[in-house]
């Protein structure tokens, strides 16, 4: 689920003498927001960092003991072979999702640009419906679509003669479970990306393409050489946002495979859940969470820079 709105440009407010009497007002107005944000967000972050240096098992929690273990958690996470399968798996999964999302979205945006009015309305309405569908609903519906016995996907594949898939269990095999997860993510992510790219395409002056066409350039070359460079800021933002979103896929995984079969679809978020909430190893789980935060904040930094570049 995503929704985006642009705030109007900010204008400077001059300070008039009359306003000086209200010295304490801004601070009073900010108290609730400060409490909401800093007490309930910054404190947990501090807590997470502290926990990553503590043993933090169930016993410690019950007896309210704090056992500092230094870098032990980091050492054990970074030498844990499971972590080194989960991390590249998460990165690989996110990359596949991002590439597919951007490719399909670009195709859809170009279709929107060249279609007749009715087809454009139809496709954008369809995409808005998919976009509006909450992530969790997308996951439960896809689980049903890919059901082994009565799923419509198996029926369609069998009927169209592509395979004899009558009892195929998609979630029972690691790679096909991945395919299902990728399709859930891409289905949910393309609409936002496609509509963003389409909005960008509308700002490209058509004369540029026409001039290139007169010079003998084909559609692909025109897109690659003229349109894409102009839309680069949009693509930069979409890439980073998609990487961040596709790394955080707890609901999609948990509602379909629960990380199975045989832990084959465990991603970082699920791993933290399994270690922490299920396994009560809160110290280790926090360490993984810290590593994930550092990773995503690094990516967000690229996002902020891309935003600034676009604003220029």
């Amino acid at each position, binding site marked *: 689920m*995503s929704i985006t709105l642009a705030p109007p440009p900010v204008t400077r407010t001059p300070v008039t003498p009359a306003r000086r009497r209200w010295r304490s007002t801004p601070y009073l107005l900010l108290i609730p927001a400060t409490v909401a944000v800093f007490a309930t967000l910054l404190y*947990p972050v501090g807590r997470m960092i502290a926990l990553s240096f503590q043993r933090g098992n169930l016993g410690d929690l019950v007896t309210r003991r704090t056992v500092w273990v230094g870098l032990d958690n980091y050492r054990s996470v970074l030498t844990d072979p499971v972590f080194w399968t989960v991390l590249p798996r998460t990165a690989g999964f996110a990359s596949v999702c991002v590439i597919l999302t951007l490719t399909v979205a670009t195709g859809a945006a170009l279709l929107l640009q060249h279609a007749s009015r009715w087809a454009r309305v139809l496709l954008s309405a369809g995409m808005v419906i998919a976009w509006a569908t909450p992530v969790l609903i997308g996951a439960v519906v896809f689980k049903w679509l890919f059901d082994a016995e009565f799923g419509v996907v198996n029926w369609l594949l069998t009927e169209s003669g592509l395979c004899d898939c009558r009892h195929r269990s998609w979630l029972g095999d690691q790679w096909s479970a991945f395919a299902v997860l990728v399709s859930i993510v891409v289905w949910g992510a393309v609409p936002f990306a496609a509509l963003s790219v389409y909005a960008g395409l509308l700002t490209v002056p058509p004369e540029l393409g026409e001039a290139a066409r007169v010079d003998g350039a084909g559609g692909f070359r025109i897109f690659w050489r003229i349109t894409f460079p102009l839309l680069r800021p949009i693509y930069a933002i979409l890439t980073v946002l998609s990487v961040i979103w596709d790394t955080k896929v707890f609901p999609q995984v948990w509602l379909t495979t629960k990380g199975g079969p045989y832990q084959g679809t465990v991603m970082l978020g699920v791993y*933290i859940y399994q270690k922490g909430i299920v396994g009560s190893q809160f110290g280790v789980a926090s360490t993984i969470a810290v590593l994930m935060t550092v990773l995503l904040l690094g990516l967000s930094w690229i996002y902020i820079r891309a935003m600034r570049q676009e604003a220029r």
Partner: protein
Amino acid sequence: MTRRALVNGACVVLAVLFVFPVYWMASTALKPDADIVSYPPGLLPWPIEFGHFARVLGDGAFWAALRASLTVTVTVVTAGTLVALMAAVALARFTFRGRTGFVLGLIIVQMIPGEALFIPFYLMLREVRLLGQLAGLMLVYLSITVPFTAWMLRGFVASIPVDLEEAAAMDGASRWQTFWRVLFPLVAPGLLATSIFSFITAWTEFTYAYVLINDPRNYPLPVYIQSFIGRDDVDYGPQMAVAFLFTLPVVVFFLLVQRRAVAGMSAGAVKG
């Protein structure tokens, strides 16, 4: 076939691919059980049966979950919007020490991945005995929605010319009157936009709800929906009916704000 016809055809195919899962959800919800587990599956739900909806609507747990979700959502939207508006007015209408720092803080906290924070939230709520309680979930949702809505509303407030307020003040209006009569009506569209954002976040969030609400009596709808998964018999009919009832308000809101949301697409983006 002309090029245009090919393009239009591709649009139709893509539109079908996007809508089909949602259609299949509605269609399954409207089929009798025997048709759901039949082979081949019927593409049209015919004869239409409202049995699953009746079953869901007759289930006390559904109403409890709906009440829980509404309580959380309404509280988060109202409290969050109020808190964010106060902060926005402070940030847009006053110059004071620490203003830039606060705005920067708002932007930075939005970047912290929620998926990494459920351990500390879990432990914190456990310590103050709010684990499994809706109040705890509300606090967590406020911390997610307030930074974004405050930052967005600040833009809306700042875009309203300050002269309007000064003119009202000159005419003898009190600060309160200025706010309610002049600023508030002008900032209303911004309030609508931000409250829709809060609504969608609080209504559809799954991860925190699942981790923090472990008491079935307090399940909000997202957790109630997942409780259908893992039962031995195929329970897709009622599950799709709940999914449909859950999705409907979001789609309606989305269609209402879609134009505005798409227009400002790349300027700021948040996904919950």
